[in-house]
């Protein structure tokens, strides 16, 4: 039986990969996914989900965990396994309760509230109402229509890469140059999105 110390050491290795960003982050995600992929079976067994839904809940849980780790929201009070299982269980319960296969609608509501954390109630409701009116299909269509460089840069940004990491990964001289390019891409997207 593997002891607690070696499990903590494994946790530290994964966290270190995820924090490094770039290729290491991708490796860390894959390691984390593979290590506890047997949760998927738990999802079918304990929560009565189809394998597809349990897989989807588990994938989302891993991605949510990665975001939280990178934002230093994982304090290490429990093992990574226990913590990830809690996230997974909540996702399964959400899926089961809502009896919905449109997981985007579930995740999107969560994403919106996360993004609005830094805005107080009055202003938040104004922005939230505007976000809910967004034409998601068109926005994604326009995103796909951007140049490869722009799209890649924005995807890295949405994946919580800092401008310094984006600069390193895409070969910009400095973080400031990466930031300027990123904002230009956002501006370009806004123009094409607004020409509906």
């Amino acid at each position: 039986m593997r002891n607690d110390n070696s499990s903590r050491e494994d946790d530290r290795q994964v966290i270190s990969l995820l924090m490094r960003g770039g290729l290491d982050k991708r490796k860390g995600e894959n390691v984390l996914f593979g290590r506890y992929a047997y949760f998927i079976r738990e999802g079918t067994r304990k929560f009565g989900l189809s394998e597809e839904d349990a897989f989807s809940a588990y994938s989302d849980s891993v991605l949510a965990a990665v975001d939280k780790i990178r934002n230093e929201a994982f304090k290490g009070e429990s093992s990574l396994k226990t913590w990830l299982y809690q996230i997974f269980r909540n996702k399964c319960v959400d899926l089961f309760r809502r009896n919905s296969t449109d997981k985007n609608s579930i995740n999107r509501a969560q994403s919106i509230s996360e993004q609005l954390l830094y805005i107080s109630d009055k202003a938040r409701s104004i922005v939230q109402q505007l976000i809910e009116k967004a034409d998601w299909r068109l926005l994604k269509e326009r995103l796909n229509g951007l140049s490869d460089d722009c799209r890649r840069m924005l995807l890295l940004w949405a994946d919580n890469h800092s401008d310094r990491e984006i600069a390193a990964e895409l070969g910009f001289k400095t973080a400031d140059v990466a930031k300027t390019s990123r904002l230009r891409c956002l501006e370009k997207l806004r123009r094409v999105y607004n020409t509906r």
Partner: protein
Amino acid sequence: MDSLDYIDHYFERQPSSEEARQFEKRVREDPEFADNVAYYLSTRIALKEMQAGEKEKQFREIYDQMVSQSNHVAAPAKTRLMNTRIWLSALAAAALIAVVVFCWSLFGGSGRGPELAGRYISQNLEEMSVQMGKTDSIQTGLILYNERKYPEALRQFEAILRSDSTNRSALLNAGIVSLKMGDYDKALSFFKNLAVRTDPHLSPALFYQALTLMKRNRSGDTALAKQLLRQIVEQNGNKKEDAMQFLRKM
């Protein structure tokens, strides 16, 4: 400051209370600005959804690969049947373990580890399954292995691991080649590395660790191998039948 730049600056770091107050005032009083904030956040959410879709595809490949390496994954429709089977297997395993532990406490180890492991290796690891028509670097390594070019095969798998140290197929095959070459310490290192990255129900990493320990047969190796084999049986892990056979014979 340009509106998008200002919004980005606000969300990219934790704002002070004064910054937050001014920002929120603008959201309330300037509809165009509020629209820009909504656009900025919607774009981020849409990108995150696209990103998640891409990663889900990547995870699906990993999962499918894990499933294809195992015969222990049940179809969803068989879940209830599997539950009963798992319980029955667990009960049978517990009974078997009790018998094995009892016999072991009476007669002690028989010292047959190296012989059993050698026989298993020659019966099961002489040839690896190669996928016809597929010519990736793993397949090249497997072809070299089947041609008994073990050092070359090992170099091939190690080259894959240099660019992707978590590649499970490369870890497994590098371990098997090392075992075949008699470099047991190296084989153990590959299998241990594989074990921490994979689910014991799907991966044979624990079994191959036990097999390597049996073959190496240093002081304490047999006891450790038995411990791993029992773990496989208890957890209904990959290669459980082989583990049970070893436990019966050791």
